[in-house]
């Protein structure tokens, strides 16, 4: 399994990278950590003419918590974010979910922005971005725009990002005092993609559940708390959500099993998020 031939560019600046991407059109692809793209190249599922390497661009190394957002640049790895000592206070959901993304060795290279650009329906990072109400900052050679995570994902490996745009950074809102967060997933082996992943947040009188691995993109639904607790008809609400998500039988699990996981793990993470409010 070897990639088909391509030209390789290691730009010195972001400006150069964006110019090359604009000129390369559909034939060009950026590579960040390569942990999804390299397997696809090796299997020849994609055969770009030009590969533009973002991995060494200083301008994309931003990792800051400011003005209510955790901002993660396109060259920041999953391992670097996970090693941030304050992550569990800043975005507790991400601190809980990132250990589930691949393995120590793949997190050393893989990026959060790459995972968001890749848009696998069962990936944890897009799920956390949707669950927390984060945003994706896109940039081409001429302009920058910001898209709410809920509007960014269109389907499997499909997003609103144009071919000449890169994901410059992703932004997660910092957790508010008094909010609670919980994450769980079921996969074949630890580090494999999730069959079902559930992320819950409880914040300001509202409980939100986001689910990955079932629909063609991460999806979320919210319910108001009743007397500070979860609604009495939560089981019915979760059942309706599970059916609305759709989901198909595949080699990993049946649609019915997935619905069952949404109902059960959904309730568990909502209860956990409610009880761990700080």
């Amino acid at each position: 399994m070897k990639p088909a031939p391509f030209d390789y560019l290691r730009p010195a600046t972001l400006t150069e990278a964006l110019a090359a991407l604009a000129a390369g059109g559909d034939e060009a692809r950026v590579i960040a950590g390569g942990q999804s793209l390299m397997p696809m190249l090796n299997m020849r599922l994609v055969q770009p003419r030009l590969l533009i390497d973002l991995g060494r661009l200083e301008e994309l190394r931003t990792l800051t918590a400011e003005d209510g957002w955790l901002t993660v640049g396109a060259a920041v790895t999953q391992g670097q974010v996970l090693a941030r000592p304050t992550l569990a206070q800043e975005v507790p959901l991400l601190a809980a979910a990132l250990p589930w993304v691949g393995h120590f060795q793949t997190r050393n290279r893989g990026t959060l922005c790459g995972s968001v650009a890749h848009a696998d329906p069962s990936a944890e990072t897009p799920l956390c971005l949707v669950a927390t109400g984060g945003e994706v900052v896109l940039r081409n050679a001429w302009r920058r725009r910001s898209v709410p995570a809920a509007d960014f994902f269109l389907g499997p490996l499909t997003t609103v990002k144009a071919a000449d745009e890169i994901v410059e950074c992703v932004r997660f809102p910092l957790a508010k005092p008094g909010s609670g967060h919980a994450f769980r997933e079921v996969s074949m082996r630890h580090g494999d993609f999730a069959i079902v992943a559930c992320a819950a947040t409880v914040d300001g009188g509202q409980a939100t559940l986001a689910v990955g691995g079932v629909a063609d993109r991460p999806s979320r639904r919210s319910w108001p708390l009743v007397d500070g607790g979860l609604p009495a008809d939560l089981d019915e609400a979760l059942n309706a959500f599970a059916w609305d998500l759709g989901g198909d039988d595949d080699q990993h699990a049946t649609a019915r099993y997935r619905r069952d996981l949404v109902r059960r793990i959904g309730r568990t993470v909502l209860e956990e998020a409610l009880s761990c409010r700080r």
Partner: protein
Amino acid sequence: MPPLSSSPPPAPLAAEARHPVTIVLNGRRRSGHAHPRLLLSDFLRHELGAHGTHVGCEHGVCGACTVRIDGVASRACLTLAVQADGRRIDTVEGLADGNGGRMTALQEAFRRHHALQCGFCTAGILMSLSDYLDRNPKPTEEELRDMLSGHLCRCTGYAGIVRAVMDVTGGTAASQAHQPAEADHV
């Protein structure tokens, strides 16, 4: 925002040409040539003749090809040789080199605890461990097994690997109790 630049993009490394690649392999400068599509794993094995790094799946799952790139454990099969240009690459051959030509304590422990049978996975596991134990010198068994989830070993069932690591880090392995204290041919 005004246009960032109107200058033409710089020229890439052409697909059909072989480009010079220089790495610091286990402390020594080594140079070779690579097409842009050449994987680092193949560059090490075919271009530099360093066969210690093994290749299993070529899609990042098995971990056999794991090397340290600037100290960080990474899949060589998911890295292009041209991406490694100018970087420090450490492979299993370098472990004993850095230890006066003798096997490291961890390698010795692998032998003692039967942490390998065919040895196909071993080079990658040792290179993961050499990065991981630098960062987390005394892992719990749970932490260690989580890290080992990034490697497939079809022979040992991982118990010997866990025991070997626990032996050199001074930790205890839950699985220790079920094993004979010492194998008789050591």
